[in-house]
């Protein structure tokens, strides 16, 4: 059952777009002999190859697992509809790009969900693999379907389709799961699939939906979620890797032949964030802050560049300029790679953490194209509500320095639909853009200054202080953004210098439905999939009407609807669908922070002020781990000029 399906696939490839994405063979990829391993994982990123390949989570787990003796991991991605149609016609199953083996032949299919919009793609892959869509219909012959990633912090909407889920960091978790599977297989699979799931559930850190019953109140709310088997814990806790220097992955990043969305050597410089932005699920669920050391970063960059040949280094984290030694890191790397024309990028930079020395280091070896900041809210008031802790003066000071140092373009990210928001809060985004351009023209003495305003709709997420908040309806979001657009376009003096990009409110409502949904949403997802729903994160494939039609067909029997899940405000007493998944955050602290938001009260970052009792550190018996170490990045040993390739 593990033979390559490549010969069948190959005959289809001349007929599809970008066939190279399906052939595998990426530099640094691994194909281990099937028989030499007793635990076999397929790892899926449920989106197109071009998005999925650079995903750090999958790349890390792929390498961690393949390093283990007797364990193999291969990757699989969503196939585009053109190939899907041909695979159905010619009976080619969902395959891995490494060994082109059928996904159904592996022990586990691990799926990493960065966003809820990949749920329909999971169903497509399961169906193409010949695996029953619902967990209850699977037998011992089928792989375990395991979810991870940020969206797995509320796996309830896909609970019907999953066998299990892991919340938090995956590095150690996949190894623990591997051991449990190995032992169970060695013992001759006692008790079948249920026994394996039970052993996983007993650890307290693998969630097995079938071992929990959800009980509802007559008004549609949840009354409680209760284990239906003794030995299964009431709450499942998240995994946290404490010392990033012990986990320097990916060591050998994959280099694809196909073009992908990120073509760079990425190093995660720290994990977690305690800035406390109330809308930010990533910042809440990845606490505490754990820094990789400056020397650890230097080593990963060195090895990674040698292994890949990438021409850009990305220093990743949720707010990269917040690393305690970011200045030395940037300067050290720019010095080291000046000759090699290696560019550096810091994908997430806060306005208040930006400084011009850092920006100069980042652009020393590359382009000085544009700077991007995310004030998130247009008014001082709304920024207090979301705890962004950035003032307009901070922003103007920063852009002033940037324009004075040769930058000509600034991009600003905002959200629309934040709790307590009014038209006035959003209209002030226009004023902010005008002030930015006015300042830029003044400092640079030139008129060709641009500011692009990019706006996304806010979606309340589980495990954040806004998990109780009402989401703004699509109609109100659109109306508010139209007012802002009219205001910007009507500005004779500055309007032409302002770029305005926004998405309509409809996709946000579907994302909101899936984010805060419960098990009853599974029927909606299945109906959408059966109606042809695929690639919901792609504008050209997404259909709002299809989702609404499916919701209207499935939700009324439960007495709920889309608005009930999205625009309805929750109360303190309500049992939330994800309460039994423990992110370490204390629910009472989240509620207090929600009340602080409504009072427009800000809360500082606990890295530099006393603890605010969010609950994570005592709950997990951990602490924040930050520098500075005081060490510097030394230049690497001097390259032998001309010697390398010419000696003979």
């Amino acid at each position, binding site marked *: 059952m593990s033979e390559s399906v*490549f010969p069948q696939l*190959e*005959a289809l*490839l*001349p*007929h599809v777009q*970008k*066939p*190279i994405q*399906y*052939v*595998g*063979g*990426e*530099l640094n990829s691994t194909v281990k002999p099937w028989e030499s391993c007793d635990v076999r994982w397929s790892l899926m990123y449920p989106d197109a190859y071009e998005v999925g390949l650079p995903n750090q989570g999958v790349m890390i787990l792929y390498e961690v697992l393949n390093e283990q003796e007797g364990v193999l991991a291969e990757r699989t991605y969503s196939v585009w509809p053109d190939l899907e149609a041909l695979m159905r016609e010619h009976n080619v199953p969902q395959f891995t790009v490494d060994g082109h083996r059928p996904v159904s032949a592996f022990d586990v299919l691990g799926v990493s969900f960065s966003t809820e919009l990949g749920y329909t793609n999971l169903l497509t892959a399961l169906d193409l693999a010949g695996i029953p869509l619902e967990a209850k219909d699977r037998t011992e012959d089928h792989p375990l379907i395991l979810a991870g990633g940020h969206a797995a912090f509320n796996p309830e909407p896909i609970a019907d389709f999953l066998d299990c889920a892991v919340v938090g960091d995956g590095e150690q978790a996949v190894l623990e799961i591997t051991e449990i599977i190995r032992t169970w297989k060695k013992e001759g699979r006692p008790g079948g699939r249920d026994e394996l799931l039970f052993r996983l559930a007993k650890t307290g850190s693998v969630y097995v939906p079938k071992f929990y019953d959800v009980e509802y109140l007559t008004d549609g709310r949840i009354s409680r979620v209760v284990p239906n088997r003794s030995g299964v814990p009431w709450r499942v806790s998240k995994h946290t890797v404490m010392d990033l220097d012990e986990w320097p992955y990916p060591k050998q990043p994959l*280099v694809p*032949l*196909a*073009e992908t969305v990120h*073509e760079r050597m990425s190093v995660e410089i720290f994990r977690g964030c305690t800035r406390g932005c109330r809308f930010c699920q990533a910042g809440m669920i990845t606490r505490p802050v754990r820094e990789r050391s400056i020397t650890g970063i230097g080593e990963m960059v060195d090895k990674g*560049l*040698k*292994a*890949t*040949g*990438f*021409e850009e280094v990305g220093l990743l984290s949720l707010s990269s300029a917040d690393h305690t030694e970011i200045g030395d890191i940037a300067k050290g790397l720019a010095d080291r790679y000046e000759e*090699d*024309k290696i560019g550096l990028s810091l994908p997430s930079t806060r306005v208040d953490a930006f400084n011009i020395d850092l920006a100069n280091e980042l652009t020393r070896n590359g*382009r000085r194209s544009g700077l991007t900041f995310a004030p998130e809210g247009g008014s001082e008031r709304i920024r207090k509500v979301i705890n962004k802790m950035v003032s307009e003066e901070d922003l103007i000071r920063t852009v002033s320095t940037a324009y004075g140092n040769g930058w000509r373009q600034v991009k600003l990210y905002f959200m629309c639909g934040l709790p307590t928001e009014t038209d006035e809060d959003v209209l002030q985004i226009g004023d902010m853009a005008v002030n930015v351009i006015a300042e830029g023209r003044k400092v640079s003495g030139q008129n060709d200054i641009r500011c692009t305003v990019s706006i996304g709709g806010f979606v309340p997420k589980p495990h954040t202080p806004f998990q109780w908040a009402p989401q703004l309806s699509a109609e109100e979001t659109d109306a508010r953004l139209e007012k802002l657009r009219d205001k910007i376009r009507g500005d004779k003096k500055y309007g032409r210098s302002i770029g305005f990009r926004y998405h309509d409110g409809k996709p946000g409502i579907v994302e909101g439905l899936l984010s805060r949904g419960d098990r009853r949403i599974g029927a909606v997802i299945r109906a959408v999939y059966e109606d042809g729903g695929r690639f919901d994160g792609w504008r050209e494939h997404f259909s709002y009407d299809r989702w609404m039609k499916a919701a209207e067909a499935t939700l009324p029997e439960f007495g709920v609807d889309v608005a009930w899940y999205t625009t309805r405000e929750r109360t303190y007493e309500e049992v939330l669908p994800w309460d039994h998944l423990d992110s370490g955050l204390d629910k009472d602290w989240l509620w207090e922070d929600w009340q602080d938001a409504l009072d427009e009260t800000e809360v500082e970052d606990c890295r530099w002020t006393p603890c605010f009792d969010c609950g994570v550190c005592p709950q997990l018996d951990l602490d924040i781990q930050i520098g500075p170490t005081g060490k510097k990045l030394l230049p690497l040993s001097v*390259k032998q*000029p*001309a010697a*390398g*390739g*010419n000696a*003979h």
Partner: protein
Amino acid sequence: MQRIRLRYTKRGRLRFTSHRDFQRAFERALRRAEVPMAYSAGFTPHPKVSYANAAPTGTGSEAEYLEIALTEHRDPATLRELLDESLPAGLDVTDAVEAHTSGLADRLEASVWEIRLDEVAAAAAQSAVEAFLAEDEVLVERRTKNGMRSFDARAAVLSLQAADCPGDRPDGKACAILRLVVRHATPAVRPDDVLSGLRATADLAPPVPAAVTRLAQGPLDAESGAVTDPLAPDRDAALAAPSTAAGPRAAKAASGASPAAGDGTA
């Protein structure tokens, strides 16, 4: 500055590599191999690589060519090995010479293609080829950026032969091989176009997609009609007048080289 010309392949499943994909992969291989590349001037410097007449996505090739510019001198044979090791298997660097002449791209006058047609009998292929060659003009259509375009696929075809696939097929199914020599013209006539022409003139419709491989490209010998090695003039020039920098290395490179077409190398 030293210029080096390389011959490389697109084999097996990597024939699905597009030319843009290859460019990125090659430039990364240059970095991994720490080749001292010359960079273009300007705001965003690029390594100096010129590619010549790349094969279409999905077709294999034994004979693709490019030229790179280095800031320091390198022995072509050593460089070839280093780059070949640095590229994924299937994208293989098979030859390298130091450039002593100009106009490599202009020298690529014609290509030799092999087209394998599974589940097509050699006799059927043979009669289709005869029908095609009997015509003075065979109009075919191809979708281009500007919509469907109609052009002649016959005039550029210098020779076209059909044969049985060598060896016994394990599944016992028929298999025919076409050998095509085509002059590079504008618009380019590609193996696909000739297959369209065979369909138009003789109704030849292979049930499975053809496996197409470029065996050679280079100067066209007017008398014999053979396609010759486009790197030969550089090798000859190196032997006649070794450059001061190259010294004996250029001669060494020649020994490691393979002729392109095999028949009638200049």
